[in-house]
């Protein structure tokens, strides 16, 4: 029985939070988790680079955090329920973050959702998409 189905990678624009991403993203996600406390949010916003020194992240993970590159975070092991803490700290809603990640921007993304969301047709697999 395959523990991690290889078909995960065939879903377009989707980064399932399996063991590899969980291991890679541990410190990034635990940094986000620290933002659950108000005093930590304040300390982070006061000096972001210094605050990040306490978390042994990769250079790319640091860049993603400092630039609020939400799609980039997901690609280096960030999980949306963790990175949303950084979003909240930065005044970015789930919808803003989703708009950024989808490449549409918040306004176009919001319009797409009001009109019924992204269609499943053509979005099931990479081969179907291409």
């Amino acid at each position, binding site marked *: 029985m395959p*523990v*991690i*189905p290889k*078909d*995960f990678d065939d*879903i*377009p*624009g*989707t*980064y*399932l*939070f*399996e*063991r590899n991403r*969980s291991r890679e993203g*541990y410190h990034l*996600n*635990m940094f*986000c*988790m620290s*933002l*659950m*406390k*108000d005093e930590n*949010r304040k300390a982070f916003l006061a000096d972001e680079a210094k605050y990040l020194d306490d978390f042994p992240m990769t250079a790319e993970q640091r860049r993603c955090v400092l630039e609020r590159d939400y*799609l980039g975070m*997901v690609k280096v092991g960030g*999980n*949306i*329920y*963790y990175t*949303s*803490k*950084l*979003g*909240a*700290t930065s005044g970015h*809603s*789930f*919808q803003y*973050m*989703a*708009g950024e*990640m*989808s*490449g*549409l921007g918040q306004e176009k*993304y919001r319009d*797409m*959702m*009001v009109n*019924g*969301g*992204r*269609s*499943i047709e053509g*979005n*099931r*697999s990479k081969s179907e998409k291409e």
Partner: protein
Amino acid sequence: MAKILGGLCTSHVPAIGAAIDQGLTQEPYWKPLFDGYEPAREWLKEVAPDVIILVYNDHATAFSLELIPTFAIGVSDKFQPADEGWGPRPVPTVYSDSELAWHLSESLILDEFDMTMVNKMDVDHGLTVPLNIACGEPDEWPCKVIPLAVNVVQYPPPTGKRCFNLGRSIRRAVDSYDQDLKVVVFGTGGMSHQLHGERAGLINSEWDKQFLDKLSSNPKALTEIPFLEYVTEAGAEGIELVMWLIMRGALNDEVKEVYRHYHVPASNTATGLIILE
């Protein structure tokens, strides 16, 4: 004897909580959604349960990557609304029936469901938003609430079949509880939605509707849905729907559908609500 009188499943979108907290429920964007909650609130008032067993998932709030319980049950007598990054929601403290929660834990574990028992955990929007949806905005929640948290964040979540069977076991545990209590089971999360990646915003209404149909009439078919179908068809975060099967497992094989409400969108999500007796 304690008795399960029915079940309610609903989405638990954080933006629904934010709309309530910011007084936006009558705005054009939100009004159709909230209007659809009225019959559910009437139903719950009429049933007037003593206890709600509320199945939800913790969104990296009480649990993090430090500790990932597949099934966790709150056993203490109260739980505070969590600070999820923007301060705690202004909702009442959640009071629980600790004695029943302990009975559930013991029964479930002896029935071979190895629950993690939790005395201290803050509860996030996954639990408080469904309470608002079903109870409005009271100063105190109208009954006791036992939190039952399921891991659906870190792969692998429990299978749909496992969840359904946990519901079965909850039913046996409640039926064997020696106090006259009216119990309702909530399953929460879903429906189709994807919050991350370039595919964010995915909605699959057709798939959602057949899920709602089968939840009443053919839940066994739903227990066969594999992980990959949930994430492909209902979006990566649509996997939360396995929690609805816990509620369904706790009810009779034959049920009556009392009410259904389906609305797109609430923020990123297709929202559903269904009540079964």
